[in-house]
């Protein structure tokens, strides 16, 4: 059985155990494995800011880390919830970058988890007029966005 099948099967078994009926679709992207859950029962995972979705993602990524390696990401989305949230985060990063540029003062964003920080750093990296860095040594860190010199 392929690893993709194993991952799909594991996600499906957890989702079913939780009493939900969701379609599990998995796609391999250059960035890692993306799993999309779809169906009306998805509301259970996305409420409270998607904490259920985040927990499920952590369990699945942890279960397959040894086989996939540390650099391979597993992202689980549900009914486009994460996609929308990621887009909001990118918009927010651009807005804060504009503020850093116009004021010349470094601006703070967060605290953010590693997944969120990565999205912010990637969004900022597209714009040569600003830079970003993470501050702190805990799981959640603040990202500082500054105008490039």
């Amino acid at each position, binding site marked *: 059985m392929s690893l993709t099948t194993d991952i799909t099967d594991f996600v499906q078994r957890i989702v079913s155990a*939780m009493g939900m009926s969701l379609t599990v679709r998995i796609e391999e992207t250059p960035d890692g494995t993306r799993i999309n859950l779809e169906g009306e029962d998805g509301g259970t995972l996305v409420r409270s800011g998607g904490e259920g979705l985040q927990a499920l993602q952590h369990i699945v990524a942890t279960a397959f880390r040894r086989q996939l390696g540390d650099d391979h990401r597993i992202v689980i989305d549900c009914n486009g919830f994460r996609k929308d949230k990621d887009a909001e985060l990118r918009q927010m990063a651009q807005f804060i970058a504009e503020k850093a540029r116009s004021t010349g003062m470094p601006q703070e964003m967060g605290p953010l988890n590693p997944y969120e920080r990565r999205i912010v750093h990637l969004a900022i990296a597209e714009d040569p007029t600003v830079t970003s860095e993470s501050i702190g040594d805990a799981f959640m860190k603040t990202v500082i966005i500054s105008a490039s010199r």
Partner: protein
Amino acid sequence: MPADGGASPLRAVIETAVRGLVDQPDSVTVTETVRRGMTVVELRTAPGDMGKIIGRQGRTAAALRTLLAVTAERHGQRAQLDIKD
């Protein structure tokens, strides 16, 4: 008893998730008891697998607790995870 048939989603979700995390899935046992309206789900694993279900900074244990809480809420219950060592 297999973790299916819809008998207890609380036990099933913990059993399924934990078996995927540990080296010795056959040593995973999950039981549940109800105390004053609260379902207590007790989890036991092989001693060597304890670190895997707790995780760095307790994040895996926290994720298991969240999955349990979300499942309980879905079924109109309240639940608590008790990791036995």
